[in-house]
């Protein structure tokens, strides 16, 4: 492919932004961009994982006690809910690849539904903690042993799940945008790039939860 035709390509394809030579370059660039962004996200959560590792080894007893007070059935349910939403997201990408517009729209709606479900459950868990005075800060009361150390776990619990929930909310915002554009029929088998990179983000948030669940609830 000569460069001249690349220029023509760019003019022909409405989805190719002016700075790119062709659709392939645009596709690869945005894909790489999202992967790099996820790389920074790994490090973003990594700081908290580091703190978790240190305090988990410092206060093993307190962490064991504290995790008994978490609501494991709700956490497990949320894990399942997120895995389902990951499946629907993956199927959304597949529908976009195959050009099944109706399926794509439904899959995005389902993904959002499960995302919202997750946040709803999270809200229930948070209010439960608030009710039991397990929210660190002035309100914190711990009847059992080692209150100070237990509180550290709850600090980490709220920081990590809170940061995860913020990512979920952002994800829902992105999904809303994706839904609107999908309904308008923006995506074709030739151009489904945004669906795919939003999917990458969604799966990443799922993966974070896959680790948070055992770390904060089980061990």
């Amino acid at each position: 492919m000569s460069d001249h035709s690349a220029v023509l390509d760019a003019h022909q394809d409405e989805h190719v932004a002016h700075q790119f030579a062709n659709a392939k370059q645009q596709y690869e660039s945005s894909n790489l961009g999202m992967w790099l962004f996820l790389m920074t996200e790994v490090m973003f959560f990594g700081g908290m994982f580091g703190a978790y590792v240190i305090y988990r080894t410092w206060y093993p007893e307190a962490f064991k006690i504290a995790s008994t007070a978490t609501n494991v059935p709700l956490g497990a349910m949320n894990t399942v809910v997120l895995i389902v939403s990951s499946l629907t997201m993956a199927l959304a990408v597949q529908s976009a690849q195959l050009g099944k517009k109706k399926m794509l729209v439904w899959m995005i709606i389902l993904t959002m539904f499960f995302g919202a479900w997750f946040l709803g459950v999270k809200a229930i868990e948070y209010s439960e903690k608030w009710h039991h005075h397990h929210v660190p800060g002035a309100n914190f009361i711990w009847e059992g042993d080692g209150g100070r150390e237990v509180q550290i776990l709850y600090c980490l619990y709220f920081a990590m799940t809170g940061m995860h929930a913020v990512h979920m909310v952002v994800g829902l915002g992105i999904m809303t945008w994706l839904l609107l554009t999908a309904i308008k029929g923006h995506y074709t088998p030739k151009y489904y790039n945004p669906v795919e990179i939003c999917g990458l983000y969604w799966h990443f948030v799922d993966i974070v939860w896959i680790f948070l669940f055992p770390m904060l609830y089980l061990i």
Partner: protein
Amino acid sequence: MQHNTMPFFPDSASTIAPEIDGLMIAELLFSVFFSVLIFAIVVYFALKYKRKSEDDRPVHIHGSLVLEIAWSLIPFIMILGFFVVGTRVFFRAYTVEAANTMEIFVTGKQWMWKIQHPEGPREINEMHLPVNRQVKFTMIAEDVIHSYFIPAFRLKKDVIPGRYTSFVVTPTKVGKYHLFCAEYCGTQHSGMVGSVYVMEESDYEKWVAGGDESMTARGEALFGQYGCSTCHLPNGKGRGPSLIGVYNSMQKLQTGGSVKADESYLRESILNPRAKVVEGFQAVMPTFQGQISEEGLLQVIAYIKSLEKEEGQ
């Protein structure tokens, strides 16, 4: 305190100071050599090959693997020597060598240094030490991070809230030296300074004798004052274990496992009694977090340690 107006080297008053100065001079020579080398090369080339006309056509030189390896490896091997020596000297600042090492306890708070001598004297922003005797500093902060810095000894160590840090030094020269806080600690950081007086051994003995009761005695008083003695009966029949001979012994824990009852365990057990309860006892001891000062803690621990000594005799 005679200071010339433009000093180049600080006073040298500890055994470690000449070692650090020696290393410093070695690295300084290394640094000067390479800096001068680069400056000389750059200036020499800039003069020698100064552009004469816009039509100059210098030849292309791709590079040289031999040179690259040479100027990576040679400096690296040189600085590896610094690494070895530097690390050894660094370790010496933490190693207790002498048998008659004396202990000094330092508490840092915004913005003063509180110094305790086990024999009794307590000082603020001043520290008296005998010459030629190894001293081990054990330090803790009450609020934020400070750093205990004596330039004449070439030593500093951060003083951290919540845990003890330490270093070891042997003063070698009688005199008065600066004491600084080197870690930024708030508004009056630059006012958190004081003086170190290194004295002849005999002068020091005289000075110590002028102080009041010893840390152990003070600790014993606190032991009674806080009601510790009502549970920790010497015969072991109280609600808490007897503390005689506890120091540095292995204690079996309620939760299984055992722990050596060293200073940091004693400290933890006073501040957070339920963390590691000794087997056969209930977790009934209240926390003393926020009730006992850092200085008081040091005194109580000194008292508990002294109980062990008596047992040993």
